[in-house]
């Protein structure tokens, strides 16, 4: 394979992976606090439809419209997550059930579709679209130019957020407290950390990032709205968080790996190597299962970092 082809694969993997990075970071934050949210697909769709609607409604310079649209997409995702937070944290509904209910509510045949219809944005062609920004004119550099310096703002944003989340988790006190809450809410509570507040905040912020990830589809990839246009990206984002074992740096690489593997089969076929693309696509999932199974001892499980309280509601002083 020549370098052009490799660059093309990487660039397309980045395009594929960017919404996964955004939504995955959000899910990572929620799960780090102990809240599993299976409603990512619904939150992304709400972000996508809201972002597109706002971008169609507002007047003004394109960049300002797009920024407001992104903010509103994040707000829409956060509102959805708030429902899940209330049900799973306060009312203590089973997190799996509550998250799935959120997917039905907001998903392809739910509120996102309804909103698209009521707002009448179905057949519209978008007025604004985020395009590639050639940073400092460095996009011309061979190989690394198109990969690192000629991307749309969402991609730069996702990189910034990965750094930010990693810094937050490992270098701030609140990030440290967050990890403690997800790992042992009882100890965290005993140390005066408000478990409920941490879970609410991070679930909600997680929803905002999912909304942003959804908006990538309607504001950057293609400025149109159709029902269910995220096409399962929310589900893949959930798998990605598990694949990354709850680490933001691995999550970034994992998102691009998912993207690269999904197109690798076709690329190889074009070069006469007959390997089904499904084989490559299923590798990350199978690898994750193998690692999860291999990490069967408690010690190994701690090393890979599954938040120990994931999915378990915290009830003070009971049992």
């Amino acid at each position, binding site marked *: 394979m020549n370098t052009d082809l490799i660059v093309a694969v990487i660039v397309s993997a980045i395009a594929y992976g960017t919404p996964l990075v955004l939504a995955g970071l959000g899910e990572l934050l929620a799960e780090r606090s102990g809240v599993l949210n299976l409603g990512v697909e619904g939150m992304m769709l709400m972000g996508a439809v809201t972002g597109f609607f706002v971008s169609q409604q507002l007047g003004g310079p394109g960049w300002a419209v797009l920024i407001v649209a992104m903010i509103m997409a994040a707000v829409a995702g956060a509102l959805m997550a708030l429902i899940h937070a209330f049900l799973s944290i306060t009312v203590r509904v089973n997190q799996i059930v509550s998250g799935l209910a959120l997917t039905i509510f907001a998903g392809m045949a739910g509120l996102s579709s309804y909103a698209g219809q009521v707002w009448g944005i179905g057949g519209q062609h978008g007025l604004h679209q985020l395009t590639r920004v050639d940073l400092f004119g460095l996009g011309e550099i061979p190989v690394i130019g198109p990969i690192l310096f000629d991307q749309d703002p969402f991609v730069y944003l996702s990189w910034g957020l990965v750094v930010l989340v990693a810094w937050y988790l490992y270098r701030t006190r609140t990030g440290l407290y967050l990890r403690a809450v997800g790992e042992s809410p009882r100890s965290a509570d005993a140390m005066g950390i408000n478990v409920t507040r941490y879970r609410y905040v991070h679930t909600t912020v997680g929803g905002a990032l999912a909304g942003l990830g959804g908006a990538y589809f309607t504001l950057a990839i293609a400025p149109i709205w159709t029902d269910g246009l995220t096409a399962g990206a929310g589900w893949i984002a959930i798998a990605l968080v598990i694949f990354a074992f709850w680490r933001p740096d691995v999550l970034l690489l994992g998102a691009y790996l998912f993207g690269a593997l999904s197109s690798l089969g076709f690329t190889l076929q074009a070069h006469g190597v007959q390997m089904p693309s499904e084989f490559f696509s299923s590798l990350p999932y199978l690898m994750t299962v193998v690692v999860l199974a291999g990490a069967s001892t408690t010690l190994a499980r*701690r090393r890979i970092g599954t938040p120990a309280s994931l999915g378990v509601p915290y009830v003070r002083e009971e049992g």
Partner: protein
Amino acid sequence: MSIHVEAGPASAESATAGLVPAVAAIGVTKRFAGGVVANDRVSFDARRGEVHALLGENGAGKTTLCNILTGLYHPDEGEIQVDGSPVRLHSPHEAQRSGIFMVHQHLSLVDSLTVAENVVLGWSRHRGLRYTPRQVEAEISEIAARYQMQVDPHARIWQLSLGERQRIDILKALYRDARILILDEPTTVLTPAETEQLFSSVHEMVAAGRSVVFISHKLPEVLAIANRITILRKGRSVTTVDAAGVDVRELARLMVGHDMPAGRVRRAAAGSGTPPADQRGVLELERVCADGDFGIQVLHDVSLSVRPGEILGIAGVAGNGQRELAEVIAGLRAHSRGAIRLDGAELHGGDPRAAINRGVAYVPEDRMGTGVSPSLSVTENLMLKSYRRDAPHAGPVLLMDRADAQSVALMEQFDIRSRGPHALVRQLSGGNVQKVVLARELSSQPRVLVAASPTRGLDVGATEYVHGVLVDSARRGVGIMLISEDLDEIVELSDRIAVLYEGRVVGIVDAAQASYEQLGMMMAGAA
């Protein structure tokens, strides 16, 4: 000297110092639902620069008192003072802000975080959002050096031994500049060398003007470390003594009390039902060793024998291997060495079903969590073990109507009061739950019954009922192992008494002749 002297804050011992105590409990009373009085007008005070020991058996009220000092519980009467002024503590966090820090028996560290991360959890010396590992690690190393503790700030908690974890909890207290440290049974998880290290750290702490409240039931170490000792018994503070002025014998007497309360009779002395001494044991343990939950060996070469019709009492302060002993016999825990024999034939470890089938009945200490399935009905709980063979059935189908009829008969026989066989067990009172457990275990015609703390938390009536059932079963030839922290109960019911201390049988005595003083010394590791 009277035993029931109330030690007030201004008792003779503390009058010598004109100083205001760092922390004091004054007439603290705590009652729980069901009328249990866990603390009854308890008073003690710890001065600056003092190691003050709280000594007592389990159930004496030490844990409740600690929970009050750390803000988990509220006293119903009395108050807590810090530096002479009353405080109301609503949470451990508030207690920490008042300078009180408890180093827990069940350590409250987050396993997957590093030492440094755990130390700054919930409180940092530095303002602002940032957490700078290098800075915190340096501070920790500095404190550790000052108090002669060996600590690796980078290590993750799960990599550490229990003793090391305790050190981290102490470090956490020192990092927060706690002025009053409560150490709850700190040496149970330590090796002798670690204990020595801990003691030298404690000396450094008090030398720096801090106060240490040292909770223990081990007499030798209390005498070794404490300046003064407050003895708790049955929820009351009996007295406060200077460590320099007492010996082990005196402390043991104060801790376990004089003799049985009036009106209660030793069954063994009354000569009722003692089996002939030459009879072979129905249950025999030969040099049994077993590990505890953390992989540390907790039973060491335990050899015991229970004869048919005999009640063998197992005395000891909780946490000395009693739970593991019961679980090993019931098949819930595998033993690592030694042999368990039932009717002369070996019982292989770690298989509860085999133990049940061979006739081992077990009344577990954790009644609600293990002994019953709380959301199931009385009938279903009565057939929890018999459903495999004896419960009414047709093929794989259980005939619940007939099972209900059987359970009504059992409920009558064992005086279980509920709304009927369909009532859920979690809706029953503690006494009735225990009767359900006993009814199930005894209706299976067992050869041996292991009863672990069978009357804990029960009211007087239910306690008497349970005692009656145990005595009655022994009379009918069941070999009974009665494990209890209540020495009165052990002495009253047993034929022989074995004392467990740190996982070893330190002695077996005839219950008719055993003196409280002798038992107390054995239980406290002083014999």
